[in-house]
Protein backbone atom coordinates (compact mmCIF):
# COMPACT_ATOMS: atom_id res chain seq x y z
CA UNK A 1 0.00 0.00 0.00
CA UNK A 2 1.97 2.95 -1.26
CA UNK A 3 -0.59 5.42 -0.01
CA UNK A 4 -0.43 4.26 3.58
CA UNK A 5 3.31 3.98 3.53
CA UNK A 6 3.70 7.67 2.87
CA UNK A 7 1.53 8.62 5.84
CA UNK A 8 3.32 9.01 9.12
CA UNK A 9 1.96 9.93 12.52
CA UNK A 10 2.66 13.58 11.98
CA UNK A 11 0.51 13.66 8.87
CA UNK A 12 -2.19 11.83 10.73
CA UNK A 13 -2.05 14.40 13.51
CA UNK A 14 -2.29 17.24 11.00
CA UNK A 15 -5.18 15.50 9.28
CA UNK A 16 -7.10 15.22 12.54
CA UNK A 17 -6.34 18.83 13.36
CA UNK A 18 -7.56 20.05 9.99
CA UNK A 19 -10.59 17.77 10.12
CA UNK A 20 -11.46 19.04 13.59
CA UNK A 21 -11.41 22.68 12.55
CA UNK A 22 -13.47 21.95 9.46
CA UNK A 23 -15.94 19.93 11.53
CA UNK A 24 -16.50 22.97 13.75
CA UNK A 25 -17.13 25.15 10.71
CA UNK A 26 -19.45 22.51 9.28
CA UNK A 27 -21.53 22.55 12.46
CA UNK A 28 -21.76 26.33 12.31
CA UNK A 29 -22.92 26.24 8.71
CA UNK A 30 -25.15 23.20 9.23
CA UNK A 31 -27.00 24.64 12.24
CA UNK A 32 -28.04 27.75 10.36
CA UNK A 33 -28.95 25.72 7.31
CA UNK A 34 -31.08 23.47 9.49
CA UNK A 35 -33.37 26.21 10.75
CA UNK A 36 -33.23 28.68 7.86
CA UNK A 37 -32.56 26.43 4.84
CA UNK A 38 -29.92 28.96 3.94
CA UNK A 39 -26.37 28.15 2.86
CA UNK A 40 -24.38 30.94 4.44
CA UNK A 41 -21.47 31.63 2.17
CA UNK A 42 -20.50 34.58 4.36
CA UNK A 43 -19.63 32.27 7.25
CA UNK A 44 -15.94 32.65 6.47
CA UNK A 45 -16.18 36.41 6.89
CA UNK A 46 -17.38 35.92 10.46
CA UNK A 47 -14.16 34.02 11.06
CA UNK A 48 -12.20 36.71 9.25
CA UNK A 49 -13.73 39.38 11.47
CA UNK A 50 -12.74 37.35 14.52
CA UNK A 51 -9.19 36.99 13.21
CA UNK A 52 -8.88 40.75 12.66
CA UNK A 53 -10.19 41.33 16.17
CA UNK A 54 -7.43 39.07 17.51
CA UNK A 55 -4.87 40.94 15.42
CA UNK A 56 -6.03 44.40 16.49
CA UNK A 57 -6.13 43.36 20.15
CA UNK A 58 -2.73 41.69 20.10
CA UNK A 59 -1.50 44.07 22.78
CA UNK A 60 -4.21 43.02 25.22
CA UNK A 61 -4.03 40.10 27.62
CA UNK A 62 -4.70 36.92 25.66
CA UNK A 63 -7.95 36.19 27.47
CA UNK A 64 -9.36 39.64 26.78
CA UNK A 65 -8.33 39.36 23.18
CA UNK A 66 -10.10 36.04 22.77
CA UNK A 67 -13.22 37.25 24.55
CA UNK A 68 -13.44 40.27 22.27
CA UNK A 69 -13.01 37.99 19.27
CA UNK A 70 -16.03 35.97 20.35
CA UNK A 71 -18.03 39.10 21.10
CA UNK A 72 -17.38 40.61 17.68
CA UNK A 73 -18.15 37.41 15.83
CA UNK A 74 -21.39 36.70 17.69
CA UNK A 75 -22.55 40.30 17.30
CA UNK A 76 -21.82 40.19 13.58
CA UNK A 77 -23.59 36.86 13.29
CA UNK A 78 -26.71 38.29 14.94
CA UNK A 79 -26.55 41.40 12.79
CA UNK A 80 -26.34 39.25 9.69
CA UNK A 81 -29.45 37.39 10.77
CA UNK A 82 -31.43 40.56 11.45
CA UNK A 83 -30.40 42.54 8.39
CA UNK A 84 -30.01 39.82 5.80
CA UNK A 85 -31.39 36.41 6.73
CA UNK A 86 -34.66 37.62 8.18
CA UNK A 87 -35.78 39.59 5.12
CA UNK A 88 -34.72 36.63 2.97
CA UNK A 89 -36.73 33.99 4.82
CA UNK A 90 -39.26 33.48 2.06
CA UNK A 91 -36.80 33.74 -0.85
CA UNK A 92 -35.62 30.91 -3.06
CA UNK A 93 -32.43 29.07 -2.09
CA UNK A 94 -30.57 30.49 -5.09
CA UNK A 95 -31.39 34.06 -4.10
CA UNK A 96 -30.39 33.39 -0.49
CA UNK A 97 -27.08 31.89 -1.52
CA UNK A 98 -26.21 34.67 -3.94
CA UNK A 99 -27.15 37.29 -1.36
CA UNK A 100 -24.72 35.74 1.07
CA UNK A 101 -22.04 35.96 -1.67
CA UNK A 102 -22.75 39.66 -1.81
CA UNK A 103 -22.51 39.92 1.97
CA UNK A 104 -19.23 38.01 1.91
CA UNK A 105 -17.80 40.45 -0.64
CA UNK A 106 -19.15 43.36 1.33
CA UNK A 107 -17.49 42.26 4.55
CA UNK A 108 -14.24 41.54 2.76
CA UNK A 109 -14.26 44.97 1.19
CA UNK A 110 -14.95 46.61 4.54
CA UNK A 111 -12.08 44.64 6.04
CA UNK A 112 -9.86 45.80 3.19
CA UNK A 113 -10.66 49.44 3.87
CA UNK A 114 -10.06 49.08 7.59
CA UNK A 115 -6.89 47.09 7.06
CA UNK A 116 -5.43 49.57 4.56
CA UNK A 117 -5.66 52.51 6.92
CA UNK A 118 -2.10 51.83 8.03
CA UNK A 119 -0.94 51.76 4.43
CA UNK A 120 -0.22 48.04 4.16
CA UNK A 121 -2.25 44.94 3.65
CA UNK A 122 -2.52 42.37 6.41
CA UNK A 123 -2.26 42.44 10.20
CA UNK A 124 -0.40 40.07 12.47
CA UNK A 125 -2.07 38.42 15.44
CA UNK A 126 0.99 37.76 17.55
CA UNK A 127 -0.30 37.19 21.07
CA UNK A 128 -1.65 33.68 20.60
CA UNK A 129 1.08 32.51 18.23
CA UNK A 130 2.96 30.47 20.87
CA UNK A 131 0.30 27.81 20.53
CA UNK A 132 1.74 27.09 17.13
CA UNK A 133 4.95 25.68 18.61
CA UNK A 134 5.62 21.99 18.25
CA UNK A 135 5.75 19.51 21.06
CA UNK A 136 7.35 16.13 20.75
CA UNK A 137 5.11 13.16 21.37
CA UNK A 138 6.87 9.81 21.15
CA UNK A 139 9.44 11.20 18.76
CA UNK A 140 6.84 12.86 16.53
CA UNK A 141 6.57 16.63 16.34
CA UNK A 142 3.00 17.78 16.67
CA UNK A 143 2.03 21.40 16.92
CA UNK A 144 0.27 22.30 20.14
CA UNK A 145 -2.54 23.84 18.19
CA UNK A 146 -3.36 20.44 16.75
CA UNK A 147 -4.13 19.16 20.23
CA UNK A 148 -6.02 22.31 21.05
CA UNK A 149 -8.01 22.06 17.81
CA UNK A 150 -8.94 18.45 18.35
CA UNK A 151 -9.71 19.12 22.01
CA UNK A 152 -11.84 22.17 21.27
CA UNK A 153 -13.69 20.38 18.50
CA UNK A 154 -14.44 17.30 20.57
CA UNK A 155 -15.44 19.42 23.55
CA UNK A 156 -17.63 21.72 21.51
CA UNK A 157 -19.33 18.89 19.65
CA UNK A 158 -20.08 16.97 22.84
CA UNK A 159 -21.44 20.08 24.51
CA UNK A 160 -23.57 20.89 21.52
CA UNK A 161 -24.86 17.34 21.30
CA UNK A 162 -25.88 17.52 24.96
CA UNK A 163 -27.57 20.87 24.52
CA UNK A 164 -29.44 19.66 21.46
CA UNK A 165 -30.67 16.45 23.06
CA UNK A 166 -31.13 17.44 26.71
CA UNK A 167 -32.49 20.98 26.73
CA UNK A 168 -35.77 22.47 25.63
CA UNK A 169 -34.17 24.96 23.26
CA UNK A 170 -32.18 22.09 21.78
CA UNK A 171 -35.32 20.05 21.26
CA UNK A 172 -37.04 23.03 19.67
CA UNK A 173 -34.08 23.67 17.39
CA UNK A 174 -34.00 20.09 16.22
CA UNK A 175 -37.74 20.14 15.61
CA UNK A 176 -37.47 23.39 13.65
CA UNK A 177 -34.67 21.91 11.57
CA UNK A 178 -36.71 18.87 10.68
CA UNK A 179 -40.14 20.50 10.11
CA UNK A 180 -40.31 24.21 10.81
CA UNK A 181 -43.99 24.61 10.04
CA UNK A 182 -45.15 21.89 12.37
CA UNK A 183 -42.78 23.13 15.07
CA UNK A 184 -44.37 26.57 14.86
CA UNK A 185 -47.83 25.06 14.98
CA UNK A 186 -46.83 23.47 18.25
CA UNK A 187 -45.87 26.87 19.62
CA UNK A 188 -42.11 26.75 19.07
CA UNK A 189 -40.92 30.35 18.77
CA UNK A 190 -39.22 30.76 15.42
CA UNK A 191 -37.20 33.81 16.34
CA UNK A 192 -35.85 32.27 19.48
CA UNK A 193 -34.78 29.08 17.75
CA UNK A 194 -33.14 31.01 14.93
CA UNK A 195 -31.37 33.31 17.35
CA UNK A 196 -30.07 30.25 19.19
CA UNK A 197 -28.74 28.71 15.99
CA UNK A 198 -27.18 31.99 14.90
CA UNK A 199 -25.48 32.59 18.24
CA UNK A 200 -24.10 29.06 18.49
CA UNK A 201 -22.94 29.26 14.91
CA UNK A 202 -21.23 32.55 15.79
CA UNK A 203 -19.55 31.04 18.85
CA UNK A 204 -18.20 28.24 16.68
CA UNK A 205 -16.92 30.78 14.15
CA UNK A 206 -15.18 32.56 17.02
CA UNK A 207 -13.49 29.35 18.11
CA UNK A 208 -12.41 28.63 14.56
CA UNK A 209 -11.07 32.17 14.24
CA UNK A 210 -8.82 31.56 17.23
CA UNK A 211 -7.61 28.19 15.96
CA UNK A 212 -6.95 29.37 12.41
CA UNK A 213 -5.20 32.50 13.61
CA UNK A 214 -2.85 30.43 15.68
CA UNK A 215 -1.97 28.41 12.60
CA UNK A 216 -1.67 31.43 10.39
CA UNK A 217 -1.24 34.68 12.34
CA UNK A 218 -1.07 36.84 9.21
CA UNK A 219 -4.63 38.06 8.74
CA UNK A 220 -5.85 39.37 5.39
CA UNK A 221 -9.32 40.17 4.04
CA UNK A 222 -9.62 36.76 2.36
CA UNK A 223 -8.77 34.98 5.61
CA UNK A 224 -10.71 31.69 5.90
CA UNK A 225 -12.37 32.22 2.51
CA UNK A 226 -10.80 29.16 0.96
CA UNK A 227 -11.45 27.05 4.05
CA UNK A 228 -15.09 28.06 4.01
CA UNK A 229 -15.49 27.04 0.40
CA UNK A 230 -13.93 23.65 1.10
CA UNK A 231 -16.12 23.15 4.16
CA UNK A 232 -19.25 24.08 2.21
CA UNK A 233 -18.32 21.45 -0.33
CA UNK A 234 -17.67 18.95 2.45
CA UNK A 235 -20.97 19.73 4.12
CA UNK A 236 -22.96 19.04 0.96
CA UNK A 237 -20.90 15.95 0.19
CA UNK A 238 -21.52 14.63 3.70
CA UNK A 239 -25.24 15.44 3.63
CA UNK A 240 -26.43 18.93 4.54
CA UNK A 241 -29.87 17.73 5.62
CA UNK A 242 -28.65 16.55 8.94
CA UNK A 243 -26.26 18.16 11.34
CA UNK A 244 -24.17 15.11 12.05
CA UNK A 245 -23.75 14.11 8.41
CA UNK A 246 -22.79 17.69 7.59
CA UNK A 247 -20.25 17.65 10.40
CA UNK A 248 -18.78 14.37 9.26
CA UNK A 249 -18.58 15.78 5.74
CA UNK A 250 -16.62 18.78 7.00
CA UNK A 251 -14.30 16.56 8.99
CA UNK A 252 -13.84 14.16 6.09
CA UNK A 253 -12.86 16.76 3.54
CA UNK A 254 -10.32 18.31 5.91
CA UNK A 255 -8.91 14.94 6.84
CA UNK A 256 -8.80 13.59 3.31
CA UNK A 257 -7.16 16.75 1.91
CA UNK A 258 -4.22 16.39 4.27
CA UNK A 259 -3.87 12.68 3.61
CA UNK A 260 -4.08 13.06 -0.18
CA UNK A 261 -1.57 15.86 -0.03
CA UNK A 262 0.89 13.60 1.79
CA UNK A 263 0.19 10.68 -0.50
CA UNK A 264 0.77 12.57 -3.74
CA UNK A 265 4.33 12.56 -5.15
CA UNK A 266 5.99 15.86 -4.30
CA UNK A 267 6.02 17.17 -7.87
CA UNK A 268 2.32 16.40 -8.21
CA UNK A 269 1.03 18.06 -5.03
CA UNK A 270 0.07 21.11 -7.07
CA UNK A 271 -2.73 18.96 -8.45
CA UNK A 272 -4.16 18.33 -4.96
CA UNK A 273 -7.32 20.37 -5.63
CA UNK A 274 -8.01 18.37 -8.78
CA UNK A 275 -7.72 15.08 -6.94
CA UNK A 276 -9.89 16.21 -4.04
CA UNK A 277 -12.57 17.73 -6.25
CA UNK A 278 -12.57 14.70 -8.54
CA UNK A 279 -13.31 12.63 -5.43
CA UNK A 280 -16.06 15.08 -4.56
CA UNK A 281 -17.67 14.58 -7.96
CA UNK A 282 -17.46 10.81 -7.70
CA UNK A 283 -19.05 10.81 -4.26
CA UNK A 284 -21.82 13.17 -5.35
CA UNK A 285 -22.62 10.98 -8.33
CA UNK A 286 -22.77 7.86 -6.20
CA UNK A 287 -24.54 9.41 -3.23
CA UNK A 288 -26.23 12.66 -4.21
CA UNK A 289 -28.11 12.93 -0.92
CA UNK A 290 -24.86 12.79 1.01
CA UNK A 291 -22.08 10.34 1.68
CA UNK A 292 -23.25 9.67 5.22
CA UNK A 293 -26.99 10.02 4.60
CA UNK A 294 -28.06 6.43 4.70
CA UNK A 295 -31.49 5.49 3.53
CA UNK A 296 -32.68 9.04 3.01
CA UNK A 297 -33.58 11.00 -0.04
CA UNK A 298 -32.35 14.53 -0.42
CA UNK A 299 -34.86 17.01 0.90
CA UNK A 300 -33.08 19.77 -0.99
CA UNK A 301 -34.02 18.56 -4.42
CA UNK A 302 -34.52 21.89 -6.04
CA UNK A 303 -32.35 24.95 -5.70
Amino acid at each position, binding site marked *: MTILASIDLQTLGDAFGQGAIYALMAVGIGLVFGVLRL*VNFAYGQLIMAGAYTLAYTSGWPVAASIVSCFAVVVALSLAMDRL*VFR*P*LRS*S*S*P*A*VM*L*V*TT*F*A*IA*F*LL*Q*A*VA*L*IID*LRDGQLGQVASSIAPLNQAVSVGGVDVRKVTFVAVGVAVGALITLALVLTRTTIGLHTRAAASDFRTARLLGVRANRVIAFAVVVSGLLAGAVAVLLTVQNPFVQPDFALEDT*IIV*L*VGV*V*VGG*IDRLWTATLGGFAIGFVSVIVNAALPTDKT*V*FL*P*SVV*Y*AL*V*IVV*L*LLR*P*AGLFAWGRR*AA*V*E*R*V
Partner: protein
Amino acid sequence: MRRPPGAVTELLGPALLVILVGVVGTTASASNEGYFLNALVSVAIVVAIYVFVGISGVLSFGQISFVALGAFAAGVMTVPVESKKGVLTSIFPLLRDHSIGNVPSLLLAAALGGVFAFLVGLPLMRLSGLAAGIATFAVLEITHNVLREWTKIGPGATTLALVPETTGALQATLGALVAITVAFLYQRSRRGRLLRASREDPAVARSVGVNIHLERLLAFTVSGALAGFAGGLYVHLLGSITTEQVYLELTFLTLAMLVVGGLTSLWGAVVGALAVSGLDSFLSRAESGVHVVFTFTLPQGTRLVFLAAIMALVLILRPSGLTGGRELRLRWSLRRWR
Protein backbone atom coordinates in the same frame (compact mmCIF):
# COMPACT_ATOMS: atom_id res chain seq x y z
CA MET B 1 -49.40 27.27 -35.25
CA ARG B 2 -50.08 30.54 -33.54
CA ARG B 3 -46.98 32.60 -32.97
CA PRO B 4 -46.26 32.79 -29.26
CA PRO B 5 -47.01 36.26 -27.92
CA GLY B 6 -44.23 38.71 -27.30
CA ALA B 7 -41.69 36.89 -29.46
CA VAL B 8 -40.64 40.14 -31.10
CA THR B 9 -39.90 42.11 -27.96
CA GLU B 10 -38.37 39.08 -26.32
CA LEU B 11 -35.54 39.17 -28.87
CA LEU B 12 -35.58 42.79 -30.00
CA GLY B 13 -35.61 44.29 -26.51
CA PRO B 14 -32.32 42.75 -25.39
CA ALA B 15 -30.81 43.13 -28.88
CA LEU B 16 -31.62 46.84 -29.15
CA LEU B 17 -30.34 47.48 -25.67
CA VAL B 18 -27.05 45.80 -26.50
CA ILE B 19 -26.72 47.73 -29.78
CA LEU B 20 -27.42 50.96 -27.91
CA VAL B 21 -24.65 50.20 -25.44
CA GLY B 22 -22.30 49.37 -28.33
CA VAL B 23 -23.11 52.61 -30.15
CA VAL B 24 -22.74 54.75 -27.05
CA GLY B 25 -19.48 52.92 -26.39
CA THR B 26 -18.00 54.06 -29.73
CA THR B 27 -18.75 57.68 -28.88
CA ALA B 28 -17.13 57.40 -25.45
CA SER B 29 -13.57 58.53 -24.83
CA ALA B 30 -10.86 55.94 -25.31
CA SER B 31 -10.39 55.58 -21.57
CA ASN B 32 -14.10 54.92 -21.05
CA GLU B 33 -14.65 52.65 -24.02
CA GLY B 34 -13.23 49.69 -22.11
CA TYR B 35 -16.11 49.84 -19.65
CA PHE B 36 -18.66 49.54 -22.43
CA LEU B 37 -16.83 46.64 -24.06
CA ASN B 38 -16.52 44.93 -20.72
CA ALA B 39 -20.25 45.31 -20.17
CA LEU B 40 -20.98 43.74 -23.57
CA VAL B 41 -18.72 40.76 -22.93
CA SER B 42 -20.39 40.38 -19.51
CA VAL B 43 -23.71 40.20 -21.34
CA ALA B 44 -22.37 37.32 -23.43
CA ILE B 45 -21.12 35.44 -20.37
CA VAL B 46 -24.26 36.00 -18.32
CA VAL B 47 -26.51 35.00 -21.21
CA ALA B 48 -24.45 31.81 -21.54
CA ILE B 49 -25.01 31.03 -17.86
CA TYR B 50 -28.69 31.90 -18.21
CA VAL B 51 -29.15 29.31 -20.96
CA PHE B 52 -28.45 26.59 -18.45
CA VAL B 53 -29.17 27.96 -14.97
CA GLY B 54 -32.10 30.19 -15.91
CA ILE B 55 -33.92 27.78 -18.17
CA SER B 56 -33.26 24.50 -16.36
CA GLY B 57 -33.50 25.88 -12.83
CA VAL B 58 -30.44 23.88 -11.81
CA LEU B 59 -27.75 25.85 -10.05
CA SER B 60 -24.29 25.73 -11.62
CA PHE B 61 -21.12 27.33 -10.38
CA GLY B 62 -19.19 25.69 -13.20
CA GLN B 63 -19.99 27.72 -16.30
CA ILE B 64 -16.91 29.91 -15.87
CA SER B 65 -14.85 26.73 -16.51
CA PHE B 66 -16.00 26.96 -20.11
CA VAL B 67 -15.27 30.65 -20.25
CA ALA B 68 -11.78 29.88 -18.97
CA LEU B 69 -11.21 27.10 -21.47
CA GLY B 70 -12.47 29.29 -24.32
CA ALA B 71 -10.36 32.23 -23.22
CA PHE B 72 -7.14 30.25 -22.95
CA ALA B 73 -7.74 28.29 -26.15
CA ALA B 74 -8.49 31.42 -28.16
CA GLY B 75 -5.63 33.25 -26.46
CA VAL B 76 -2.95 30.60 -26.89
CA MET B 77 -3.93 29.97 -30.50
CA THR B 78 -3.82 33.61 -31.56
CA VAL B 79 -0.53 34.69 -30.01
CA PRO B 80 1.81 34.96 -33.04
CA VAL B 81 3.98 31.88 -33.53
CA GLU B 82 7.23 33.79 -33.26
CA SER B 83 6.27 35.24 -29.85
CA LYS B 84 4.98 31.92 -28.57
CA LYS B 85 8.38 30.27 -28.92
CA GLY B 86 9.78 32.78 -26.47
CA VAL B 87 6.95 32.91 -23.93
CA LEU B 88 5.28 29.53 -23.86
CA THR B 89 8.39 27.42 -23.66
CA SER B 90 7.04 24.17 -22.26
CA ILE B 91 3.87 24.01 -24.31
CA PHE B 92 3.05 21.09 -26.67
CA PRO B 93 4.77 21.68 -30.04
CA LEU B 94 1.44 21.36 -31.84
CA LEU B 95 0.10 24.36 -29.94
CA ARG B 96 3.37 26.23 -30.18
CA ASP B 97 3.88 25.99 -33.91
CA HIS B 98 0.45 27.03 -35.12
CA SER B 99 -1.62 30.14 -34.84
CA ILE B 100 -5.08 30.91 -36.18
CA GLY B 101 -7.04 34.02 -36.97
CA ASN B 102 -9.46 35.89 -34.81
CA VAL B 103 -12.76 34.44 -36.03
CA PRO B 104 -11.50 30.84 -36.14
CA SER B 105 -10.25 31.30 -32.59
CA LEU B 106 -13.72 32.30 -31.45
CA LEU B 107 -15.21 29.29 -33.20
CA LEU B 108 -12.59 27.07 -31.64
CA ALA B 109 -13.40 28.50 -28.20
CA ALA B 110 -17.10 27.82 -28.73
CA ALA B 111 -16.44 24.28 -29.96
CA LEU B 112 -14.16 23.42 -27.06
CA GLY B 113 -16.56 24.94 -24.55
CA GLY B 114 -19.40 22.89 -26.00
CA VAL B 115 -17.47 19.63 -26.09
CA PHE B 116 -16.12 20.10 -22.59
CA ALA B 117 -19.58 20.92 -21.26
CA PHE B 118 -21.04 17.90 -23.01
CA LEU B 119 -18.45 15.54 -21.51
CA VAL B 120 -18.82 17.00 -18.04
CA GLY B 121 -22.60 17.14 -18.29
CA LEU B 122 -22.91 13.52 -19.34
CA PRO B 123 -22.50 12.26 -15.78
CA LEU B 124 -23.30 15.46 -13.89
CA MET B 125 -26.70 16.29 -15.33
CA ARG B 126 -28.26 13.56 -13.26
CA LEU B 127 -27.76 15.75 -10.22
CA SER B 128 -29.94 18.59 -9.08
CA GLY B 129 -30.20 20.93 -6.15
CA LEU B 130 -27.18 21.64 -4.01
CA ALA B 131 -25.44 18.49 -5.21
CA ALA B 132 -25.47 19.89 -8.76
CA GLY B 133 -24.20 23.23 -7.49
CA ILE B 134 -21.28 21.63 -5.67
CA ALA B 135 -20.41 19.17 -8.45
CA THR B 136 -20.26 21.96 -11.04
CA PHE B 137 -18.21 23.99 -8.62
CA ALA B 138 -15.81 21.06 -8.42
CA VAL B 139 -15.50 21.25 -12.20
CA LEU B 140 -14.52 24.91 -11.89
CA GLU B 141 -11.89 24.05 -9.29
CA ILE B 142 -10.43 21.26 -11.40
CA THR B 143 -10.40 23.36 -14.56
CA HIS B 144 -8.70 26.20 -12.75
CA ASN B 145 -6.20 23.89 -11.11
CA VAL B 146 -5.26 22.18 -14.37
CA LEU B 147 -5.02 25.41 -16.38
CA ARG B 148 -2.88 26.92 -13.67
CA GLU B 149 -0.48 24.04 -13.16
CA TRP B 150 -0.22 22.20 -16.47
CA THR B 151 2.21 24.26 -18.49
CA LYS B 152 2.02 21.98 -21.51
CA ILE B 153 -1.31 23.45 -22.56
CA GLY B 154 -0.90 27.07 -21.60
CA PRO B 155 0.98 29.67 -19.64
CA GLY B 156 0.28 28.04 -16.26
CA ALA B 157 0.33 30.50 -13.40
CA THR B 158 1.96 33.21 -15.47
CA THR B 159 0.17 35.81 -17.55
CA LEU B 160 -0.72 34.95 -21.12
CA ALA B 161 0.18 38.16 -22.92
CA LEU B 162 0.41 39.38 -26.52
CA VAL B 163 -3.09 38.21 -27.40
CA PRO B 164 -4.41 40.36 -30.29
CA GLU B 165 -6.94 42.83 -28.90
CA THR B 166 -9.58 42.33 -31.53
CA THR B 167 -12.69 42.72 -29.38
CA GLY B 168 -13.63 46.27 -30.22
CA ALA B 169 -17.06 47.87 -30.18
CA LEU B 170 -18.18 46.02 -33.29
CA GLN B 171 -17.07 42.56 -32.22
CA ALA B 172 -18.27 42.97 -28.65
CA THR B 173 -21.70 44.06 -29.83
CA LEU B 174 -21.93 41.32 -32.42
CA GLY B 175 -20.70 38.77 -29.90
CA ALA B 176 -23.34 39.74 -27.36
CA LEU B 177 -25.95 39.65 -30.12
CA VAL B 178 -24.88 36.16 -31.15
CA ALA B 179 -25.22 34.95 -27.56
CA ILE B 180 -28.64 36.58 -27.19
CA THR B 181 -29.91 35.17 -30.48
CA VAL B 182 -28.76 31.64 -29.72
CA ALA B 183 -30.33 31.83 -26.27
CA PHE B 184 -33.55 33.18 -27.76
CA LEU B 185 -33.74 30.48 -30.41
CA TYR B 186 -33.05 27.79 -27.85
CA GLN B 187 -35.59 28.96 -25.30
CA ARG B 188 -38.23 29.34 -28.02
CA SER B 189 -37.55 25.89 -29.42
CA ARG B 190 -39.64 22.91 -28.42
CA ARG B 191 -36.79 21.46 -26.40
CA GLY B 192 -36.11 24.69 -24.58
CA ARG B 193 -39.76 24.97 -23.63
CA LEU B 194 -39.80 21.37 -22.43
CA LEU B 195 -36.85 22.04 -20.20
CA ARG B 196 -38.45 25.18 -18.80
CA ALA B 197 -41.61 23.20 -18.10
CA SER B 198 -39.51 20.64 -16.27
CA ARG B 199 -38.14 23.47 -14.15
CA GLU B 200 -41.62 24.32 -12.99
CA ASP B 201 -42.52 20.73 -12.21
CA PRO B 202 -39.98 17.94 -12.76
CA ALA B 203 -42.40 15.20 -11.78
CA VAL B 204 -45.06 16.21 -14.29
CA ALA B 205 -42.45 16.71 -17.01
CA ARG B 206 -41.10 13.24 -16.38
CA SER B 207 -44.55 11.71 -16.40
CA VAL B 208 -45.33 13.10 -19.85
CA GLY B 209 -42.15 11.54 -21.16
CA VAL B 210 -39.63 14.37 -21.04
CA ASN B 211 -36.14 12.98 -20.59
CA ILE B 212 -34.91 15.62 -18.18
CA HIS B 213 -31.36 14.32 -18.14
CA LEU B 214 -31.10 14.67 -21.90
CA GLU B 215 -32.74 18.10 -22.02
CA ARG B 216 -30.48 19.41 -19.30
CA LEU B 217 -27.46 18.00 -21.09
CA LEU B 218 -28.46 19.85 -24.25
CA ALA B 219 -28.88 23.12 -22.38
CA PHE B 220 -25.59 22.58 -20.58
CA THR B 221 -23.80 21.99 -23.87
CA VAL B 222 -25.32 25.04 -25.57
CA SER B 223 -24.47 27.07 -22.49
CA GLY B 224 -20.92 25.69 -22.52
CA ALA B 225 -20.44 26.60 -26.18
CA LEU B 226 -21.71 30.13 -25.60
CA ALA B 227 -19.52 30.43 -22.52
CA GLY B 228 -16.46 29.28 -24.48
CA PHE B 229 -17.29 31.80 -27.18
CA ALA B 230 -17.68 34.55 -24.59
CA GLY B 231 -14.32 33.51 -23.14
CA GLY B 232 -12.80 34.03 -26.57
CA LEU B 233 -14.30 37.50 -26.76
CA TYR B 234 -13.03 38.19 -23.27
CA VAL B 235 -9.41 37.27 -23.92
CA HIS B 236 -9.38 39.33 -27.10
CA LEU B 237 -10.71 42.24 -25.11
CA LEU B 238 -8.13 42.00 -22.35
CA GLY B 239 -5.08 41.19 -24.49
CA SER B 240 -3.54 39.38 -21.54
CA ILE B 241 -5.07 37.05 -19.00
CA THR B 242 -4.30 34.91 -15.96
CA THR B 243 -6.24 31.94 -14.66
CA GLU B 244 -7.36 34.01 -11.66
CA GLN B 245 -9.39 36.28 -13.92
CA VAL B 246 -11.64 33.44 -14.99
CA TYR B 247 -12.21 31.86 -11.61
CA LEU B 248 -14.07 32.57 -8.39
CA GLU B 249 -14.62 36.29 -8.64
CA LEU B 250 -15.94 36.10 -12.17
CA THR B 251 -18.18 33.19 -11.17
CA PHE B 252 -19.73 35.09 -8.30
CA LEU B 253 -19.97 38.36 -10.17
CA THR B 254 -21.69 36.88 -13.22
CA LEU B 255 -24.07 34.77 -11.12
CA ALA B 256 -24.90 37.87 -9.13
CA MET B 257 -25.57 39.74 -12.38
CA LEU B 258 -27.99 37.03 -13.44
CA VAL B 259 -29.81 36.93 -10.12
CA VAL B 260 -29.93 40.71 -9.82
CA GLY B 261 -31.41 40.99 -13.30
CA GLY B 262 -33.85 38.14 -12.80
CA LEU B 263 -32.81 34.51 -12.99
CA THR B 264 -35.59 33.23 -15.19
CA SER B 265 -35.56 35.49 -18.24
CA LEU B 266 -33.21 36.42 -21.06
CA TRP B 267 -34.20 40.03 -20.53
CA GLY B 268 -33.18 39.65 -16.88
CA ALA B 269 -29.78 38.25 -17.86
CA VAL B 270 -29.08 41.17 -20.19
CA VAL B 271 -30.39 43.85 -17.86
CA GLY B 272 -28.55 42.36 -14.88
CA ALA B 273 -25.24 42.16 -16.75
CA LEU B 274 -25.52 45.74 -17.99
CA ALA B 275 -26.77 47.17 -14.72
CA VAL B 276 -24.13 45.56 -12.54
CA SER B 277 -21.23 46.24 -14.91
CA GLY B 278 -22.46 49.79 -15.36
CA LEU B 279 -22.51 50.27 -11.62
CA ASP B 280 -19.13 48.63 -11.28
CA SER B 281 -17.61 50.88 -13.94
CA PHE B 282 -19.09 53.97 -12.37
CA LEU B 283 -17.69 53.00 -8.98
CA SER B 284 -14.23 52.24 -10.34
CA ARG B 285 -14.21 55.64 -11.98
CA ALA B 286 -15.27 57.15 -8.70
CA GLU B 287 -12.50 55.36 -6.87
CA SER B 288 -9.94 57.06 -9.08
CA GLY B 289 -11.65 60.42 -8.65
CA VAL B 290 -14.52 61.54 -10.82
CA HIS B 291 -16.65 64.54 -11.45
CA VAL B 292 -20.31 63.76 -10.82
CA VAL B 293 -22.08 67.00 -9.93
CA PHE B 294 -19.05 67.64 -7.74
CA THR B 295 -15.71 65.92 -7.72
CA PHE B 296 -15.09 63.21 -5.21
CA THR B 297 -12.63 60.42 -4.69
CA LEU B 298 -13.40 57.23 -2.82
CA PRO B 299 -10.83 55.23 -0.85
CA GLN B 300 -9.73 51.90 -2.29
CA GLY B 301 -12.19 49.11 -1.55
CA THR B 302 -15.23 51.39 -1.44
CA ARG B 303 -16.17 50.28 -4.91
CA LEU B 304 -16.58 46.71 -3.71
CA VAL B 305 -18.47 47.84 -0.63
CA PHE B 306 -21.00 49.76 -2.69
CA LEU B 307 -21.28 47.10 -5.34
CA ALA B 308 -21.89 44.35 -2.81
CA ALA B 309 -24.26 46.45 -0.72
CA ILE B 310 -26.37 47.43 -3.72
CA MET B 311 -26.46 43.84 -4.93
CA ALA B 312 -27.55 42.63 -1.50
CA LEU B 313 -30.20 45.34 -1.30
CA VAL B 314 -31.66 44.47 -4.69
CA LEU B 315 -31.82 40.80 -3.72
CA ILE B 316 -33.43 41.52 -0.37
CA LEU B 317 -35.94 44.08 -1.62
CA ARG B 318 -36.64 42.47 -4.99
CA PRO B 319 -35.78 38.78 -4.77
CA SER B 320 -37.05 38.04 -8.26
CA GLY B 321 -34.58 40.52 -9.71
CA LEU B 322 -34.85 43.89 -11.44
CA THR B 323 -37.00 42.47 -14.24
CA GLY B 324 -38.98 40.22 -11.93
CA GLY B 325 -37.63 37.32 -14.01
CA ARG B 326 -40.02 38.16 -16.84
CA GLU B 327 -39.32 38.71 -20.50
CA LEU B 328 -39.83 42.16 -21.91
CA ARG B 329 -43.44 42.47 -23.06
CA LEU B 330 -44.48 45.57 -24.92
CA ARG B 331 -48.16 45.23 -24.17
CA TRP B 332 -47.48 44.54 -20.57
CA SER B 333 -45.24 47.56 -20.24
CA LEU B 334 -47.68 49.83 -22.07
CA ARG B 335 -50.42 48.86 -19.70
CA ARG B 336 -48.08 49.55 -16.86
CA TRP B 337 -47.25 53.03 -18.04
CA ARG B 338 -50.77 54.14 -18.82
